[in-house]
């Protein structure tokens, strides 16, 4: 398929003797918004970190436009500049202002000019509603605002895919909405996204595919209507019932 960005084949990951991911298969196409749901400890973060090469998978393949990035000869930094990541704990650079956070990667990694990078950063900071705060340092803004800046920082690199690892889990409840709204706007603009989340409403209404993970394997995968409306596996039913209360 021409519009396929990533294909994961038989991916597995051990930490010591602990098998955290087993035989993971799935693919990401342009415009996909894939939600990954599952209990804590089921390996969701590890999967995202493997895709971004922050962890080295034990075996399997990660094909990026058909080329296996786990082979020698891949430049991990170069690859990561196309596959952005937004973390639960924001990880904004504490020594820089909001604007500098969104500029530094463009200048140093993509070798853009300062002025061009600034303009580009401002575009995304406006889209996430953080333009007024460009002079603030990360410690001076709220969690929700930090996460919106982190999204702008990732987007300013013009990635092909953006990975989100529980982007709202570290936020006070009243800030969850603002970040989810930004993410929904991004999804609607056609951004390809892979989102680990516990926000079932987001998974159901925004994504076009839902992956349910349990104990390091993909237990069930399908359209949100299927997973939420008509789950086939008992584990999925049990997991989802915990969210319905």
């Amino acid at each position: 398929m021409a519009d396929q960005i990533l294909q994961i084949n038989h991916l597995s990951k051990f930490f010591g003797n602990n098998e955290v991911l087993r035989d993971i298969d799935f693919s990401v196409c342009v415009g996909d918004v894939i939600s990954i749901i599952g209990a804590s400890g089921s390996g969701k973060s590890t999967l995202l970190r493997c895709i971004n090469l922050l962890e080295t998978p034990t075996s399997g393949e990660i094909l990026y436009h058909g080329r296996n990035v786990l082979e020698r000869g891949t430049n991990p930094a170069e690859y990561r500049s196309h596959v952005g990541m937004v973390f639960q704990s924001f990880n904004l650079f504490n020594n820089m202002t909001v604007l500098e956070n969104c500029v530094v990667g463009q200048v140093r990694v993509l070798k853009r000019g300062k002025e061009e990078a600034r303009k580009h950063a401002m575009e995304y900071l406006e889209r996430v509603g953080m333009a007024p705060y460009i002079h603030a340092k990360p410690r001076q803004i709220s969690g929700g605002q930090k996460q919106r800046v982190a999204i702008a920082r990732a987007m300013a690199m013009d990635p092909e895919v953006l990975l989100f690892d529980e982007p709202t889990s570290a936020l006070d409840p009243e800030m969850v909405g603002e970040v989810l709204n930004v993410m929904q706007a991004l999804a609607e603009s056609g951004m390809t996204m892979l989102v680990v989340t516990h926000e079932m409403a987001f998974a159901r209404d925004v994504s076009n595919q839902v992956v349910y993970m349990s104990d390091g394997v993909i237990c069930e995968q399908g359209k949100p209507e299927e997973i939420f409306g008509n789950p086939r596996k008992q584990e999925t039913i049990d997991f989802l019932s915990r969210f319905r209360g």
Partner: protein
Amino acid sequence: MGKLAQLGLDIAKLWSKYSSSYINGMRNTLILALIGTLIGCLIGFICGVLNTIPYSKNDHPIKRFVLKLIRVIIRIYVEVFRGTPMVLQAVFLFYGLPYFTDNALRFSSVWAAAIVVVSINTGAYMAESVRGGIISVDPGQTEGAMAIGMTHVQTMTSVILPQALRNIMPQIGNNFIINVKDTSVMFIIGFPDFFATHRAAVGASYLYFPSATVEMIGYLTMTLLASFLLRWMEKKMDGSSSYELAQTDQLTMTAGTYRHPDKGSPFDERNREYADEDLREQTGKEDR
């Protein structure tokens, strides 16, 4: 009372005769301490960075070997220079080097020798501080940098080292103050520092305690000044505790992007359809 008055008189006498020597000595002491601390910090940063280059089992054996070797060499350097008195290091470098190499290697000026000794000594202390400073930066900062495609070097120079530098500013200040005082041992190689002035003045005038008093006051003035300057620099590095909201007209606005530029963003107040049902009830906010 009489003794104090006598002391005052003697100091006045010394000062009128040797003031330019004292001031010159202070100048030399400050220059040596400053240059030694700066070069020492540079050495410390280089060692600290080399010491923290990550390697894993998957790396090439040669790379792993080289990195381990570097760590061992730095370890030895730190232990040797931290574990021996600076005065002996100066003696070995200034007198020992020409002796053991039959004058093939020698320092032509005491300045060069003194700067090398103080720098290497400070570097040994700073290497550990910098390593600690780097380790104490939140690992999330590295991950954030790696996730946007930065290399190890880019991550270090843009993100980690600036934060490590801020973390270790107090130690750099400490080292500078220690250097101001401890460069007094450089009289052993004939370096004309502030303490050397004392020895010269006493030799000529026999006013031992008056001169020692001048020295005490002089050193204390220099170190207090240094403390003050360092505090000021730390404040400066921290930046202002508040920030200015960027004005709407300074920004190239996309039409209709937001309504309350100084209250935040459209997302702050827009509907919260993905927030928890019961949360919406708690906060009493309704969808627009």
